[in-house]
């Protein structure tokens, strides 16, 4: 029941609204009750409202307001990118992106693959049913 993901310096968050939608950022400072200063390796450090952030489980060890170089070094040391891409949340986002980027031919191929998979499942199911009935 108690909260596990706290807003703290070094908390990695996902932007869920606005121009930087989908970007992983690190909270480097807290401006006031509603806003944080966020930074990421490929963006200019700026303020963002907490309502635009979804906190993740990942936290890195940085002092308040680190320089860009030390921020990137800390993110490499904590292996944020791999941890994110291996987490279930991160994997889901990757799959969503992939699906949104399909063209018509890709969708056709997906349809064929699903039919084939369904057929294989039904074959096994029929086999098991026959075993059970006998």
């Amino acid at each position, binding site marked *: *029941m*108690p*909260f596990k993901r706290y807003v703290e310096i070094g908390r990695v968050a996902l932007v869920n609204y606005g121009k930087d939608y989908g970007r992983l950022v690190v909270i480097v400072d807290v401006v006031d*009750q509603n806003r944080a200063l966020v930074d990421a390796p490929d963006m200019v450090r700026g303020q963002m409202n907490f309502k635009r952030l979804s906190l993740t489980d990942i936290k890195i060890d940085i002092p308040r307001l680190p320089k860009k170089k030390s921020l990137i070094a800390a993110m490499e040391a904590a292996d944020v990118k791999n941890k994110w891409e291996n987490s279930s949340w991160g994997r889901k986002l990757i799959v969503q992106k992939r699906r949104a980027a399909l063209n018509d031919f890709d969708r056709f191929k997906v349809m064929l693959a699903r039919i084939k998979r369904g057929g294989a499942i039904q074959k096994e199911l029929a086999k098991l049913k026959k075993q059970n009935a006998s």
Partner: protein
Amino acid sequence: MKTILSTDTMEIPDGVTVRVKAKMIEVEGPRGKLARNFKHLNLDFQLIEGGRKLKVDAWFGSRKTTAAIRTAISHVQNLITGVTKGYRYKMRFVYAHFPINASIANNNTSIEIRNFLGEKKVRKVDMLEGVTIVRSDKVKDELVLDGNDIELVSRSAALINQKCHVKNKDIRKFLDGIYVSEKGTVVEE
């Protein structure tokens, strides 16, 4: 203004187990079990140190929610003393001329009051659940209410008191009634 976090903890004595789930608190002890629902409050209840302490948090609370932390803790403390020591409220009959005639019925769960101020009306009060009432034998004109839940015991005492209000008279002169004389616990220490 909103205070980011206000928190308070309380110790839970040995011999008492407290269970917390979704703002419903259950306390179990030697005298029985009591439960209380805090769903109307915007607070976080959690047991820490393996059940030895109860922590209550208010995140981004106004002055009123911060105040509610301490009252919630007091309510839980009352549950704990109720379940370990119980509550005993004593009431005395006060009358100037007409002796108040009270009889306990229903195996100690209801009381009938007659001859209050000489009136013919018989007042019957049912005790709430878990509360027993007994006419004290050593002391003249005394009632003893026992129970585990302080809310129920005190409310039963209030019901008895309110049934014996004087009407249409100067109450500074007609002081008759049944009044709470002592609020204590069943198990003395």
